[in-house]
């Protein structure tokens, strides 16, 4: 398997940031009650992880170990603030709704996790791909959760009403506790499935 393919497969499934690394759970709980915000969040995290890993991997040979973490945080903050600035300028409504969560991408453990675990020891191009793969791996789980939560919580998909007027929204799906249940169920399902696959080998 080519290293590119391996990196993609790990991010999306075998080493999925949510299912296996259990990173970035805070934002999984916070922004998944509506698909549009989830997609913006995923795009932000993917962009920041990929660009951050790319930059850090490029400068890693010049970086003293003592200030490694400070520089990682600085680089990630830079890309996150860029995302925030772009949102404020071009998607003001989404920026207002996401509010503090965009800034909180900096504290998303996926960013630092990938910088430490991958970008610190790999070539820039692969690190960039690793960032994309992890962003997407995080993304598809979030989007699935958001789909369930928005569908049951609001009776809509991307804000379009799909359920009739007789539908009673499940208010709990809009609130944070439902994300706890759903993330836990998804983790359980994914890991049970994975264990089964492993058992067959």
């Amino acid at each position, binding site marked *: 398997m080519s290293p590119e393919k391996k990196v993609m497969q790990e991010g999306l499934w075998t080493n999925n940031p949510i299912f296996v690394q259990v990173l970035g759970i805070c934002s999984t709980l916070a922004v998944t009650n509506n698909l549009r915000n989830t997609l913006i969040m995923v795009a932000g995290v993917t962009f920041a992880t990929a660009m951050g890993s790319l930059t850090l991997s490029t*400068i890693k040979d010049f970086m*003293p*170990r003592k200030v490694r973490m400070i520089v990682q945080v600085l680089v990630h903050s*830079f890309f996150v*603030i860029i995302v925030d*600035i772009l949102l*404020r300028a*071009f998607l003001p409504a989404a920026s207002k709704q996401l509010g503090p969560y965009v800034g909180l991408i900096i504290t998303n453990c996926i960013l630092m996790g990938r910088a430490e675990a991958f970008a610190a020891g790999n070539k820039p191009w692969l690190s960039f791909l690793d960032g994309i793969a992890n962003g997407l791996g995080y993304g598809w789980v979030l989007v699935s959760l958001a789909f369930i939560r928005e569908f049951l919580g609001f009776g809509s998909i991307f804000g379009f009403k799909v359920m009739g007027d007789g539908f009673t929204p499940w208010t709990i799906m809009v609130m944070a506790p439902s994300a706890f249940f759903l993330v836990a169920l998804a983790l359980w399902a994914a890991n049970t499935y994975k264990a089964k696959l492993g058992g067959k080998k």
Partner: protein
Amino acid sequence: MKVKKESIGYVVSFTFAVCLVFVLLLAVANQVTLPQVEANKRFARQVAVLKAFGLAKADAARAEVESVYASSVKELKAPGGIGAAYKAEIDGQAYLAVQVTGAGLWGPITAILAADPEVQRIKGMDILDQQETPGLGGRIGEAWFVDQFAGEKVSPEGTVAVRQGSGKGDQDKENSQVDAVTGASRTSDFVQNLVDSALKAIKELGGSL
């Protein structure tokens, strides 16, 4: 001579250089998008003012909002302590609106509130900016909450109470009372203070015109 990567001099200059480069880039990005951000803010404020006056149409395009705003809202000179003041004539009746900022739970809350100059009834209200807890206090920005204020009668003391209620919104326009947000008592208190200060400001403004 080979530079030692772990020497103090190298560490300091490396950190300094990295900070300088990234901060410079950020400053540039911020400057470049500043006009766009300002325009967005102006637009958001115009929408809020039109909402308070009850002139906003749902899903109006930007150009439409700007033309309605330009034709029907007059910006007044704001008295001290008030963010901004507006006047609009609707169906032959003059209404005043003020932009007020007050304390919130996490940060300031800014609202625009419109009423008749004698402050008999609130014309409408909209929250322009708030940083309350998302999902709890943050719900003061939602339509069911702010719409309660439209047409609400102001009490003889010049106040409107934000109280515990059914949780579905108080539809009684005569009781000078609206429903508070469940799970956000403090935020609801702050909104009440803010609304009362806005009503007072409008009364003073109406008296001075």
